[in-house]
């Protein structure tokens, strides 16, 4: 069995990729996917720890978080759909009528 630190390193990398993506990407879809990456990085952590400590609650946590992530994604896509309808694209860096 791999030591828990391996999982942590992987998750950290995944998380960082997600963060980088959120900060730099233009497309709303891509950003949402990056957020998913981040969430899953956390999930990796949780699973890793849960199995490491032989606890069940970590797994429960992950199940919840996956469900919530799905719900979140659903809402997100709904909003993006709206944006697509009016803007014909999902680039969100030019949505800035609200500022200052």
């Amino acid at each position, binding site marked *: 069995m791999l030591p828990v630190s391996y999982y942590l390193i992987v998750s950290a990398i995944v998380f960082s990729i997600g*963060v980088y993506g*959120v*900060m*730099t*990407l*233009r497309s709303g879809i891509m*950003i949402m996917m990056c957020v998913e990456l981040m969430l899953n990085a956390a999930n990796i952590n949780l699973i890793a720890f849960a199995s490491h400590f032989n606890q069940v609650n970590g797994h429960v946590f992950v199940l919840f978080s996956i469900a919530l992530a799905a719900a979140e994604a659903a809402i997100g896509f709904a909003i993006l759909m709206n944006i697509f309808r009016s803007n014909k694209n999902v680039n*969100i*860096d030019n*949505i*800035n*009528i*609200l*500022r*200052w």
Partner: protein
Amino acid sequence: MDFGSLAFLIVALPVLAFVLTLAFGNRLPNGGGHIPIVAIAMSFIISVLIFLQIYPNHGTVEQSAHWFSVLNVGIFIDPLAIVMLMMVTFVSLLIHIYALGYMSHDPGQTRYFAETALFTAAMLGVVLADNILQFFIAWELVGLCSYLLIGFWFRKPSAAAAAKKAFLTTRVGDVLFLAGIVILYFNMYTHVLPVVGGHETVYLLQFKTIFENLTLIPTDQLTIITLLFFGGAVGKSGQFPLHVWLPDAMEGPTTVSALIHAATMVTAGVYLVARTFPMFIAAPESLIIVALVGGFTALFASTMGLVMNDIKRVLAFSTISQLGYMMMGLGVGAIIGAEAVGFAMFHLINHAFFKACLFLCAGSVIHAVGTNDLREMGGLFGKMKITATTMLISSLALAGIGIPVSIGAIKLGTSGFVSKDAIILEGAYSYFAHGGVYGSLIFFFGVAAALLTSIYTFRLWFMAFTGKPRQERHAHEAPSTMTGPLIILATLALVFGALTFSPFIHYLETTYENEFFEEIDPNGYIHGLAERAGYHIPEHPIVHLDLAHDTLIMMLPVIAGLLGLAISWAIYHKRMFSVASIGNMRNPLFRILAKRYYQHEIFIELISLKFTYGVLALTSEFSDRKIVDGTIDAISSFFIGGAEVLKKIQTGVVQNYATATVLGVALIALVLSWGVI
């Protein structure tokens, strides 16, 4: 009946008259002028009754009631006060009667009579006060009334300006006076209260309390206090250098000038020094300054009187000059003691008569010819005989013409002669003879001023009444309400001094010789105070001059007076030589006199406008707007400007927000790990 208990009416009646006149005067004939006349007449009667009651046993009237805090109100009538009371009520009464005629055509006569009633009341309040604060209060009200009366014709800008000047200038003195009171209170509080306090309520500012405990106060403190008091007197009595308001005060009706310059306001300063004379004598350095300032003013003012062409202005300068005499008379008390008060007060009373008369005569003349300018008058003698005669009599009194011999108690001479002679010879000369500081100088001031006084007085008379009429206007004699007072006053100016000299002086001496003062210092109260301050009052302070031995000295004032008369006669009546050759603006001496020593330039333009307004006021205003308030505005614009800058952070691009979030995380992590490590 104890008339003393009516003493409060002396003030209360004129106050009542003020209120009544103000309220109902408009509906009465003569603007309600009869109300103050009746009131003041009654005040006069009460004063006389009180005088008759207390005169035989040199008594006093004392009443006092708690006012508030540590202060009281009260009435204190002693010989000093009662003579003053009678004079003020009497002269004021005559002037009021005169004003009935003089002001009869003025639409504002109701206001006039109300204000003069209040003015009289305030002056009587000064006289009656039993403590220095009450004195000050009444003193200030006198100032207020003078402001109102000088500015009576307020539509005239010059009148409004003169009123302001009078009030402001006297206010300078008043502040000094107030400071004196404050410092006096401090000394009474720290030095006297521990001694006298405890057993009963002591009013620290009451004259009697002050006089009783003068020895407890350090001399140097007393010197400061009395000098400050004198500062007040300088303002009110028009002494150098605060005399500047007085000539301008002629902007009011002539009756007002008479009231201010003869009976009331200006004498208040002299009365102040007389009233607090024990304090001065306990700090004789101040008295010497009083004498010097007084003497100098007497001379200084008369030089300016020489060149004035406004009839009232000439009289104004003469007033200043005569007040200088009174001050000088008081000042020499440093050596001659309490007699000085008698001399000064005697001159004050006489001066009230003849100066009131002079002003009222001048009023008649102005009334008749419609101008103040002496150069436009002349030859009025034939048309206004009563006025001319009464004015001549009072001019003689002002110039101090008389013969220095006495028949029994009666001195031969006009009242001005009697009292001025007393100040110069028995006062100033005694002071000089006993080796008083600057004695010769003071004596010189007295004599020199007498000469100049005589010159300008008769210059005025000759220019007005003799020679050819220089104006076409038909002059006529005034009605009897106006001439009546003139005659009474002229009579008094002629004989009052001659008749009453020694009883008056003796009576006033008793001011400090009753049981109260004997209890304080059995060896002589005034003497004791002077001794304590290192000044010795001789056993017989007055040097008795003998006409046989000291002819020159004794004749000196008379000679000065006659010489002046002669010079005036020669120049202004006979026109022996033309004054135009020296009396023009090319002559620097003439210019400086005509410009009144440039006081206007110094006081108004330099001190008031350039320094107070130009420097102090504008600097304060500038710093207030730009610095103090500017700071506040700068803070506010800093934030509002900051808001405009800071809001730009909010770019509206969501990725930037995400970046900010991540950066925030990084920064917090940095802070936290820095805290840990």
